[in-house]
């Protein structure tokens, strides 16, 4: 019975996969909208059950799998995010040919992420990381006839295979230095032996590659632009969120003893990430590409928080992931809707959107304000907590650079808002009919953007999850 609660998200996801497969075999001729209803219904049940079921802490399979409160929270959050992505992607899903296959891929990626968060052994970590990244590449290829979709998938699979090669090299060095691969043993045996440090740095590089931190960010913008919009949303929200969780967990709890090594790495990488992400975001015209660079910059801020190396840093990073999830889902919801109805993705084509589609324009504006960190929205609080956690180390240079970057970021977020509200355009996008599920997803996430900031209990709740970890 304990195993039942320990693996709650994982077994529910695999059960859902089997149900979808059986339904597919039983009735192949089902219509797209019926599949969409089935998936959304199952996903909703899964999320509600996940939040309601009690969280059990403990380990399974001889320490391979390890469940902790913060991890369980993150898993539920990712499942909820996937539900919203299913809702906002409806317009696009109705047009794609292989809707069930798409759902199966999305569920297997999600399952990989859940296992990755709970991994207690390098083997488990590697397997789940691959389970999380290989189906993603297949999802990127879902615009079969589009040239750029294939290109994006090719870039993603090659860069992720290369980065996991580097990471495996690192793991093999760690094994050579200590003779063990379980996280609990590695914590005890970490040392400043050169072999161990090289192994750690290679492992760090592999993870940072997936997080698209700056020297390893080159794949991000291309993959984001080329993939279908819901896949881009999934990549930037769910995949990034899971990676941040795992990254923070591994740094804090497995390599906590090497604090000064990874502090230096984070210091250099976070400055590079914020500055370069911002500079490139300024000159983008395509909105998906623009959000790619914006997400690179946000990862830079998260690294500032993580570098604080305290329970506060971990909490701030998790809290920011919650805020970032809501804001990015709204932004991508609007982009997905407009892209699948009209095919427009550039900032110029959004000129005058506020006159023709006020609801979409306002949603987008609130999401962008939250990403920029303008006060009434939750993004502001998320950034405050990250900076506060970063100050903990007493390194003010890092904080000043981060604060300056937030000001620069305001410029390019406002550029999009100006295009929507102030610029006039004769052939603005026609008024669009938005479906019920899109509206539900947008309303819930907008409420999330506003309420997460003001409900202080959410931050405290996350902080309490981390106590004793």
């Amino acid at each position, binding site marked *: 019975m304990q195993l039942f609660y320990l693996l709650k998200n994982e077994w529910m996801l695999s059960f859902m996969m089997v149900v979808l497969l059986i339904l597919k075999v039983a009735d192949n001729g089902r219509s797209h909208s019926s599949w969409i209803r089935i998936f959304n219904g199952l996903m909703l049940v899964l999320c509600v059950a996940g939040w309601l079921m009690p969280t059990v802490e403990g380990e399974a399979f001889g320490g391979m799998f390890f469940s902790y409160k913060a991890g369980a929270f993150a898993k539920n959050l990712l499942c909820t995010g996937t539900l919203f992505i299913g809702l906002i992607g409806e317009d696009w899903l109705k047009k794609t040919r292989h809707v069930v296959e798409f759902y199966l891929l999305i569920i297997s990626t999600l399952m990989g992420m859940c296992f990755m968060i709970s991994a207690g052994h*390098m*083997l488990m970590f*590697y*397997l789940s990381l*691959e389970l999380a990244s*290989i*189906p993603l*590449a*297949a999802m990127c*290829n879902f615009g*079969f*006839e*589009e*040239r*750029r979709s*294939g*290109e*994006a*998938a*090719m*870039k993603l*699979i*090659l860069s992720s*295979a*290369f980065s996991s*090669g*580097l990471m*495996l*090299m690192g*793991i*093999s*060095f760690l*094994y*050579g230095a200590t*003779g*063990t*691969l379980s996280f609990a043993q590695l914590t005890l045996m970490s040392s400043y032996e050169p072999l161990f440090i090289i192994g750690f740095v290679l492992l760090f590089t592999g993870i940072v590659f997936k997080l698209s931190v700056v020297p390893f960010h080159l794949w991000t*913008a*291309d993959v984001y*632009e*080329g993939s279908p919009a819901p896949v881009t949303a999934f990549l930037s929200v769910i995949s990034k969120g899971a990676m941040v969780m795992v990254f923070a967990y591994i740094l804090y709890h497995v390599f906590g003893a090497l604090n000064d090594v990874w502090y230096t790495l984070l210091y250099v990488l976070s400055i590079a990430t914020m500055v370069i992400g911002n500079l*490139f975001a300024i000159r983008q015209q395509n909105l998906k590409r623009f959000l790619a660079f914006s997400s690179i910059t946000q990862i830079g801020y998260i690294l500032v928080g993580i570098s604080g190396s305290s329970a506060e840093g971990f909490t701030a990073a998790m809290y920011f992931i919650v805020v970032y999830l809501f804001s990015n889902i709204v932004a991508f919801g609007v982009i997905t809707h407009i892209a699948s109805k009209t095919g427009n993705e550039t900032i110029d084509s959004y000129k005058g959107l506020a006159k023709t589609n006020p609801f979409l324009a306002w949603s987008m504006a609130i999401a962008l304000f939250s990403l920029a960190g303008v006060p009434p929205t939750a993004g502001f609080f998320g950034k405050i907590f990250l900076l506060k956690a970063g100050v903990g180390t007493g390194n003010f240079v890092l904080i000043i650079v981060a604060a300056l970057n937030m000001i620069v970021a305001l410029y390019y977020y406002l550029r999009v808002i100006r295009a929507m509200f102030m610029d006039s355009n004769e052939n603005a996008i026609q008024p669009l009919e938005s479906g019920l599920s899109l509206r539900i997803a947008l309303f819930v996430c907008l409420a999330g953007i506003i309420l997460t900031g003001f409900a202080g209990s959410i931050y405290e709740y996350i902080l309490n999850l981390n106590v004793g970890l």
Partner: protein
Amino acid sequence: MNAIPLTHVLMVSTALFFIGVYGFFTRRNLITMLMSIELILNSVNINFVAFNKYLYPEQMEGLFFSLFTIAIAAAEAAVAIAIIINLYRTHSSIDVEDADELKL
């Protein structure tokens, strides 16, 4: 039995690793790039097996890890080749230089 010292084996695996990295960065054919990645993964396998045999012969963690790596590498290659085939259909070429629509 241990006539060959561990360092020799590690040299082979390191050389293999860098041949893979070099190939990945210089080759322009997608299949060859995929083969370079396989070289990297194989050098990791050699590492694992060598460490296990020479340093920690009492347990088998390294051997098992290399078995899993082989399986995952096959899965990765399957998906990558499927993507390359689809790329060939749209671009009529498997040269990375021809897939250049997405630019800064």
